């Protein structure tokens, strides 16, 4: 098997007496969706922050495409090919849908220091942004202000902005959150196809989506990965049953 695209080795982060992530090693391989599940407070957000660069781990390392990025900044990791979506939509609400997508292509171009030409008039930036919007089905809303989008549309735009980066790996923080049944289903179908372009580390509460999508699942409880495996393996894992259902292991 080839090297994993994204991997963490023994990540550890404590806040005072609370160990938020305890010795976490997970990896994400070409073409797969690896879901991280776990109860609230299990350390999922802390884990994501360490993978994406918002938090520095106390010990352990993060590897992207075989390179150690543990001490890299968020933006360096993004440039190296890490695409992220936020749990609570992080979009420029005063700007239009297209402008938000163009921000993504601007990041991908790595050339924000242009002060003269209009951003909307730049064909390269624009085509990239439009293509991403097209894929998530937001093309018709390109001139709508982000602030007046529905919740579901904002989730779509989140994904579109990440798409403009053409990342090597996605980290998605609860993309299904707040979507209705219909919305979840659409996005599930979309992510299902997306995995062939770049693998997805998917933190998600929506178990229907997780069961439908995940090639592998890791279960995080109290900062530890208690089990990793296929959907069936996780279903039958005594540790998971004990942690989730309170059954005796």
């Amino acid at each position: 098997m080839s090297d994993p695209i994204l991997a963490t080795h023994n990540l550890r982060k404590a806040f005072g007496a609370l160990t938020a992530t305890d010795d976490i090693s997970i990896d994400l391989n070409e073409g797969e969706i690896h879901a991280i599940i776990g109860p609230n407070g299990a350390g999922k957000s802390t884990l994501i922050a360490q993978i994406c660069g918002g938090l520095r781990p106390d010990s352990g390392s993060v590897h992207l495409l075989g390179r150690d990025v543990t001490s890299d900044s968020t933006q360096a990791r993004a440039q190296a090919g890490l695409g992220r979506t936020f749990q609570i939509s992080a979009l420029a609400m005063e700007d239009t849908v297209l402008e938000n997508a163009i921000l993504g292509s601007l990041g991908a171009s790595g050339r924000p220091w242009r002060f003269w030409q209009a951003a909307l008039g730049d064909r390269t930036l624009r085509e990239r942004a439009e293509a991403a919007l097209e894929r998530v089905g937001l093309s018709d809303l390109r001139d709508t202000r982000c602030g007046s989008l529905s919740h579901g549309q904002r989730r779509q735009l989140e994904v579109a902005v990440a798409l403009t980066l053409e990342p090597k790996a996605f980290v998605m923080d609860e993309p299904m959150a707040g979507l209705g049944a219909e919305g979840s289903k659409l996005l599930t179908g979309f992510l299902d196809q997306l995995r062939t372009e770049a693998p997805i580390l998917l933190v998600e509460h929506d178990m229907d989506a997780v069961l439908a999508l995940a090639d592998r699942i890791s279960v995080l409880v109290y900062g530890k990965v208690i089990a990793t495996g296929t959907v069936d393996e996780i279903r039958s894992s005594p540790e998971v049953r004990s942690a989730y259902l309170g059954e005796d292991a």
Partner: protein
Amino acid sequence: MIPERLVNAILFAGLIAVPLCALVADEPFTITLVTRAVILAIAAVGLNIALGIGGLVSLGHAVFFGLGGYAMGVLAFHAQTYTPLNLGPLTIAGTKSMPLIWLAATAISAFVAWIIGLLSLRTSGVYFIMITLAFGQMFFYFAISWSTYGGEDGLSIYVRNGFPGLNTLIPIQFFGLSFIILSVVLFLNARLQASPFGLALNAARQVPARVETVGLNPMRLKLVAFVVSGAITGLAGALFADLNRFVSPTMFSWQLSGELIVLIIIGGVGRLFGPVIGACLFVTLEHWLGGLTDFWHVFLGLILLAIVLFARGGIMGLLTGKEGTHV
């Protein structure tokens, strides 16, 4: 509601028409008053780039206004006393040429903005406000204690500096010069706002986390905005000093920093012509209310309170129905 472009056009036309009428009616003081508004508008347009687009609440922009003023004062002082200006290893002659003075004013302001920006952008929010305010005060006290250039009393320049082909002492000519600079600065601002940099900066104000995750550095964007902003305000400072033929530490004062923000909020935060409306209204109030009562600042305070609490978009917001950007 009136379209923003129309408001801008009317304002622009008004700024040309009023001094021309004053010229015909032989009221040079009115021309000087409009020139004052135009120069303050340039300073506020500069600040608006940092504040309105970049979200940087700088309460120390008088630093750049003052630096521009002193760049003019020092260079002209050495020219009028025929003494060389000794800068350690480098000795240069003073100058009475406006273009050279403007160059010096923007360069020194940009440099200082870079240093202050590097330090204060390590923080954000309230810290940023307090730190910029503190740096402003530092320059204020420095100017007071630097007696070579007049200390607390300031520095008078006897003859207004020159511009090739113009007699700058004639009010309408100096107005024209200032007005052209304002137009250029507004044009540059419009381009910058629509450019890739402007788009990224605008996003960095609203969602820095997103800007980072697309691989851009929000701090660096803001730093560049702060430098551009400081340079423009510095240029305005040089013009302001030339208008009065006088510089003093009050150009560095915290009141001035506050007033520059006030101009923007009265006009409309983040709107291209917001600072221009604000400056015109401010100078009008200053002249009109100031003529009625010595205590016109009380009324300015009340107007400002009303705008902050009830009309966040400023005058531009009231006219066009568009809110200002959220800072």
